[in-house]
């Protein structure tokens, strides 16, 4: 008989809603619950947190999420896979084991996957940066972190070792979902077509609510019921790769061919070459078919041999950004907003603020797509002036917001609600690391021995 597993997607980003994951565990009939919580630069910010406190550096919502789902997952035997380890998977695993003990779940076994931190290997190789001219050592003391996108194999190994909870740092998002499939079905790590179709499943599920009607509604064109109670998705995967996307009955949102198609292409460039650590997946022949309400069959994912390198996410201090905002309303609001921008532009020049890049926006008019795309828009009732600039240090960044704030007493009539900020910018770039230079390992914590 064909074996099938049900994998729930409990989070699409670090700050995501928590109750839908509890609903999945309680009513979803799932065997695996995956939390994707690690954004592109989050691991670099987490590395900064760990430098301040070596016990930290994992996802700040780890405790809240684990307390919410561990009791029900333990009672139903649902395995959890997550990248909430961020810059400290071992710290997160220790913390999770401690939470399990405090909940009386004494036999819960937690695994940490380590080895995504490849900073030393990257420095030794002085690898070239993909996004701009330069190498990793040229970033000097601005370099914060280098984490390789690991594949599914070490997570599958942790599951084989009996882990109830698997916690990684940087790993490819679809791999979090591929790992349970490899573990449950014993898929070979060179069965490229199965790994490609499994990657389709992982890719569709990784953003949670984005396939059940989130990031989708457009009243009158695409209406979605009950977004305040949006249900998170379930992937029903069979050992031959057959896939149905669904959700908990009675939860908010919908699963349709449309929601699945939008998510299939989300953050995809060439659909025939979606490069992952375990496989180069091919989405170009995928078919999508509604087979029942909230049940969509997705087939036709394929794959070819994985590449010889792993993508590495490099976190570095890029620059500082200063910003100021102020609002104008009523008759002439647009003209006063434009005048305000001209005044700030002139002030920044007169007072010699050292900015390498400046941006002048009117929120409500042209801030999202620029003056050319927005040219035909009608006059709004209110506008919000926004000035941002990139600087080399915090002192200069602060001066930008100050020049907006002083519009209160020095600028056009009736400006209100001024606001300012200045911050450092941790940005992310990429390098490609020869695969053999990363050596992931699995460590176990907790559990009755």
């Amino acid at each position, binding site marked *: 008989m064909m074996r099938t597993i049900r994998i729930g997607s409990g989070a699409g980003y670090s700050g995501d809603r928590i109750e839908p994951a509890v609903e999945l565990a309680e009513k979803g009939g799932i065997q695996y619950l995956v939390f994707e919580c690690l954004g592109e630069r989050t691991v670099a910010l987490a590395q900064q947190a760990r430098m301040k406190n070596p016990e930290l550096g994992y996802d700040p919502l780890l405790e809240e999420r684990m307390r919410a789902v561990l009791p029900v997952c333990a009672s139903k035997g649902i395995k959890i896979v997550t990248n909430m380890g961020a810059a400290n998977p071992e710290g997160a695993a220790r913390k999770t084991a401690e939470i399990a003990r405090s909940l009386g779940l004494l036999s819960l076994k937690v695994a940490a996957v380590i080895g995504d931190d490849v900073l030393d290997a990257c420095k030794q190789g002085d690898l070239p940066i993909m996004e701009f001219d330069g190498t990793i050592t040229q970033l000097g003391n601005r370099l914060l972190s280098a984490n390789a996108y690991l594949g599914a194999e070490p997570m599958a190994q942790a599951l084989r070792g009996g882990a109830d909870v698997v916690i990684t740092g940087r790993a490819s998002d679809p791999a979090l979902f591929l790992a349970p499939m490899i573990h449950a079905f014993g898929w070979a790590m060179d069965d490229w077509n199965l790994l490609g179709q499994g990657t389709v499943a992982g890719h569709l599920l990784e953003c949670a609510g984005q396939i059940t009607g989130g990031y989708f509604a457009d009243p009158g*064109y695409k209406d979605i019921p009950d977004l305040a109670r949006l249900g998170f998705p379930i992937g029903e995967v069979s050992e031959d790769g057959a896939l149905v996307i669904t959700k908990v009955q009675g939860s908010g949102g919908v699963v349709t061919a449309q929601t699945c198609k939008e998510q299939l292409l*989300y953050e995809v460039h060439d659909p025939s070459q979606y490069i992952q650590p375990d496989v180069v997946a091919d989405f170009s022949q*995928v078919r999508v078919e509604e087979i029942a309400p909230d049940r969509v069959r997705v087939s036709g994912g394929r794959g070819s041999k994985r590449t010889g390198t792993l993508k590495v996410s490099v976190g570095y201090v890029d620059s500082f950004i200063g910003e100021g905002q102020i609002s104008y309303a009523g008759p002439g609001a647009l003209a006063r907003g434009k005048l305000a921008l001209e005044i700030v532009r002139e002030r920044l020049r007169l007072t010699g603020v050292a900015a390498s890049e400046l941006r002048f926006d009117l929120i409500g008019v042209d*801030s999202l*797509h620029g003056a050319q795309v927005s040219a035909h828009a009608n006059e709004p009732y209110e506008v919000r002036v926004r000035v941002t600039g990139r600087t080399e240090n915090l002192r200069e960044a602060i001066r930008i917001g100050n020049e907006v704030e002083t519009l209160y007493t020095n600028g056009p009539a009736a400006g209100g609600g001024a606001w300012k900020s200045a911050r450092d910018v*941790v940005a992310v770039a990429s390098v490609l690391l020869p695969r053999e230079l990363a050596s992931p390992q699995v460590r176990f914590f907790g559990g009755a021995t």
Partner: protein
Amino acid sequence: MKLREIAHSRTGDKGNTSNISVIAYHEKHYPLLLRQVTSERVKAHFAGVVEGEVVRYELPNIAALNFVMTGTLGGGVTRSLALDAHGKSLSSALLDLEIEASAGDK
């Protein structure tokens, strides 16, 4: 008519590159998308936004196009000065594109 009448769309981001899917509500409109929603038109529509090139990928099985636009996200999502650093709102702007439909297309 507007593209919005026959297609839906979603934006994704990677670094300084934005991708926008354009998906026909009905398969019969896919040829219309193929003919009229070209890379050149998309690039022209996003004048002042896209600094790089626009490449179009075709997915006939799901009646969809995928546009990959380089140099679009203010130097990269993690360092952009833009209010919408991810460019998430770009898909809605693309649906404003004008489509010429003959009687047989409706």
